[in-house]
């Protein structure tokens, strides 16, 4: 054997440099392949053992959870069930991971069951220690662990954790912040929305939709806080407050709405015009004339014309006709024609077509009056 190795050594030594390089490369590649295969095999066996552990825990825990959820247990039997579950998940090495499996299981049941079963699951969640675990993750975890912990606490309706969750509604991380805001509204209702008073971070449109969806549950309640939100320095909070005003029919604070028609941010301005229209706030028509004159942005001006079409009377019909006849901005002319149609003023549109002999006038009126478009 020794002689064989020596022979190979001298053979390699005698080779030309290019062959030496090729052989060296082959050896390196073989070593790398062996390392990769061993890593893959180890990972696969680790995954298999995790899955086996998960199956075992589920198999052992499921009947106990079912017993708790579907049976009217005595307090002592409930305590026994909690002890049994804790014994199953107890492990020096895998406790966290086992608790994670249990957590997912309870959340799954919670998403599918209602009524009394719902409350029993929440009780079990507390007693097993999953609430405590979620709170620890919330205080010490990475951002994604914190966001997940908040989501779990709100899914499991742990109302007593609301105060802690409120601390994260303006967190630096957007996901933690979004989950905390959503959980706050879900757990604390309209009172918990007071976090909007001091919110400095921007709210995405998606987040506004999520919060609105939760807020719909208190549709006919008066949201007292809406005033300060309409005056917030955070424009996204102002927009969200306007959305709430519109969707939850919050008619108070209309004077503030009037001021927002002149807001420096055009997006806020547009939303304020839209809200004025949706709330049928016709007293603001005078302000809409002013906005139309003051602003140079076509989008905002078009929005004003649309609102006039919904809120206005004969005076506004005259104004819209004026825009239709004399304005040179195509979008505004089109919007004015549509607004007249919405007002039912076909007479104004037809007289414009008759007087405005250009192809432009003909096309605009034809387009607007065509119900298929």
């Amino acid at each position, binding site marked *: 054997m020794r002689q064989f190795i020596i022979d190979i050594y001298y053979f390699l030594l005698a080779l030309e440099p290019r062959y030496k390089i090729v052989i060296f490369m082959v050896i390196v590649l073989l070593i790398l392949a062996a390392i990769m295969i061993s890593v893959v095999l180890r990972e696969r066996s680790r995954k298999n053992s995790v899955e086996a552990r998960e199956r075992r825990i589920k198999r052992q825990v*499921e*009947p106990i959870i*079912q*017993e708790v*959820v*579907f*049976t009217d247990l005595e307090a002592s039997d409930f305590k026994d069930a909690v002890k049994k579950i804790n014994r199953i998940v107890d492990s020096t090495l895998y406790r966290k991971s086992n608790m994670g499996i249990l957590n997912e*299981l309870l959340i*799954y*049941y*919670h*998403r*599918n*069951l*209602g*009524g*009394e*079963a*719902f409350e029993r699951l929440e009780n079990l969640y507390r007693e097993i220690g999953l609430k405590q675990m979620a709170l620890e993750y919330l205080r010490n975890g990475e951002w994604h662990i914190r966001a997940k912990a908040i989501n779990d606490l709100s899914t499991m309706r742990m109302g007593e954790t609301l105060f802690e969750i409120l601390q994260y509604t303006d967190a630096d991380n957007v996901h933690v912040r979004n989950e905390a805001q959503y959980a706050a509204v879900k757990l604390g209702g309209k009172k918990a929305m007071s976090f909007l008073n001091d919110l400095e971070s921007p709210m995405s449109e998606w987040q506004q939709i999520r919060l609105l969806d939760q807020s719909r549950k208190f549709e006919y309640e008066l949201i007292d806080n809406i005033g300060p939100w309409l005056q917030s320095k955070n424009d996204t909070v102002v927009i969200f407050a306007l959305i709430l005003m519109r969707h939850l029919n919050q008619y108070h604070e209309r004077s503030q709405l009037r001021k927002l028609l002149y807001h420096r941010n055009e997006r806020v301005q547009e939303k304020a015009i839209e809200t004025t229209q949706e709330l049928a706030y016709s007293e603001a028509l005078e302000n809409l004339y002013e906005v139309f004159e003051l602003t140079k942005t076509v989008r905002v001006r078009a929005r004003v014309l649309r609102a006039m079409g919904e809120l206005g009377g004969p005076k506004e019909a005259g104004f819209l006709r004026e825009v239709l006849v004399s304005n040179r901005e195509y979008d505004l002319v089109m919007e004015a024609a549509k607004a007249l149609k919405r007002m039912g003023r076909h007479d104004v549109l037809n007289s414009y077509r008759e007087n405005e002999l250009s192809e432009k006038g003909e096309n605009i009126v034809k387009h607007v009056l065509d119900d298929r478009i």
Partner: protein
Amino acid sequence: MSDKAKILIVDDEPLIRDALAFKLTKDGYDVDTAEDGEKAIQKIESEEYHIIISDIMMPFISGFELVKILKERGTDAPVLMLTSLNSETAVLKAFDLGADDFMTKPFSPNELSVRIKKLLKNSKK
């Protein structure tokens, strides 16, 4: 033969299937399960059930198709649809195809028990 009412649960989610089976067994029924529409049809062909509880979104044969097939074959057992689909269209379609009751998830197990009792009572008339 047992005088217990026999219920077939058709759901592709094992956790829901097992939980329902546990609850209904506890209520005193004889419970059988199937993980999809195909297996449910095989079971219905060989056994007689008093009630069938079926999910809608399942592999191979959906809950809607299952109800349609059962009604075409003249199966007498009432069918209760238990699904996450929470839309008017789904409810109307289910009843149109011949379902006897409709519940959405999350569901109250106690309410389910009451509905089953009612369906059994009606089917005996």
